[in-house]
């Protein structure tokens, strides 16, 4: 049986995901952020599917287990593609453009290959601490990639307020997951309490994205330009009274 906390967070995150997609469509920026929208729609479907499987087959069932973890793996793959799409978007006008896609593709297949090899070699202990360690490492790759994205953004002076918020959301999601799995690996006693963190981190990320698409216009600079005193339209001063 699913707890109240999990149910509330699941419904909240599903609503926010769908809300972000709707705002994106309304703003006519669906195609510009197509991977992000696919990720949100997939997460929405996965969350609802998870709730359905728990209700029909139960929390302890193998069917639910396979559905959840397979779905989570696919979400991670789309997450990597999302980071790749951000890199692609950022380097679109730079001289590095021809090298970005092949580099990201090689990196992606390297991560998938190494993970597959690890899983295959440790198949007998897959559902023990190995799974937690693998998840921790996978999410840490996401943390490093997101930080690399941030550094490139600063180096290229390509930061817009919208981009900063979108990347910050990804950073929150990946670093909260990586830290959470590392803590689970180090202290198995905390496992029950720590399982509450990933859904919360996801909800925070989606809430931030919804805010971004809703309130932050495309192309707004991350740092406001300095206003010139001579451009003042209304001169006000605080009275001494």
């Amino acid at each position, binding site marked *: 049986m699913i707890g109240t906390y999990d149910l509330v967070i699941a419904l909240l995150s599903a609503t926010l995901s769908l809300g972000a997609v709707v705002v994106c469509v309304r703003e006519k920026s669906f195609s510009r952020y197509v991977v992000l929208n696919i990720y949100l729609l997939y997460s929405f479907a996965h969350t609802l599917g998870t709730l359905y499987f728990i209700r029909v087959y139960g929390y302890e069932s193998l069917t639910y287990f396979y559905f959840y973890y397979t779905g989570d793996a696919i979400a991670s793959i789309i997450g990597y593609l999302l980071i790749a799409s951000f890199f692609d978007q950022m380097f679109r006008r730079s001289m590095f453009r021809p090298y970005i896609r092949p580099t990201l593709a090689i990196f992606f297949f390297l991560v998938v290959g190494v993970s597959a090899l690890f899983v295959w070699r440790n198949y007998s202990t897959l559902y023990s601490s190995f799974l937690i*360690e693998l998840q*921790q490492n996978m999410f840490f790759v996401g943390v490093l990639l997101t930080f690399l994205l941030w550094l490139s953004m600063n180096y290229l002076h390509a930061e817009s307020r919208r981009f900063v*918020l979108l990347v910050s959301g990804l950073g*929150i999601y990946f670093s909260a997951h990586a*830290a959470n799995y*590392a803590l689970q690996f180090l202290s198995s006693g905390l496992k029950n309490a720590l399982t509450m963190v990933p859904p919360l981190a996801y909800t925070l990320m989606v809430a931030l994205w919804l805010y971004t698409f809703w*309130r932050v216009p495309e192309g707004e600079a991350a740092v*406001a330009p300095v206003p010139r*005193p001579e451009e003042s339209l209304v*001169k006000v001063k605080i009275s001494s009274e």
Partner: protein
Amino acid sequence: MFATFVSVFVLVSSGLLLLFWLRSAAQSVLRQRFEQDYSAEVAEANQLEYLAIRKALAEYPEEIADYAGLLTTLERDYEALTYLLRNAATVHVGRYTRTERLLVMDFQLLRLWVRLKRLVGWPSWRSGLLEMATILEYFGNVVGHRLVTFPSRVSNL
């Protein structure tokens, strides 16, 4: 043993980066645009220098030699603006709003960070001072908007 070491490393670095991302997101959310920018008027009317400092830091940082002087000036501007925030044209006299409180905390942390850098002789203070000036610009805008919304204590020049 190696796996434990890796996990500790992942935990520490991810934890620090989580704080970094949360701060970055909070800053970007708070850095909203105002329909009418009053920060210049407020700075001019109260002889505050945060805009001039921000301009200098953004446009010709290599010409700035006295960072300590800039920090002192920004701190003085901060005192004046936070006084106005708490007392000018507000129904919550003596208090900050939630957003202002967050930015005040951010400013204090930056102040500490810049002083720490100065203490250990780290040469680059620019980014910290620039962020402090940006926070003051936000405060200036808030004060300006309040004074225009409740004009009884504002006189047009």
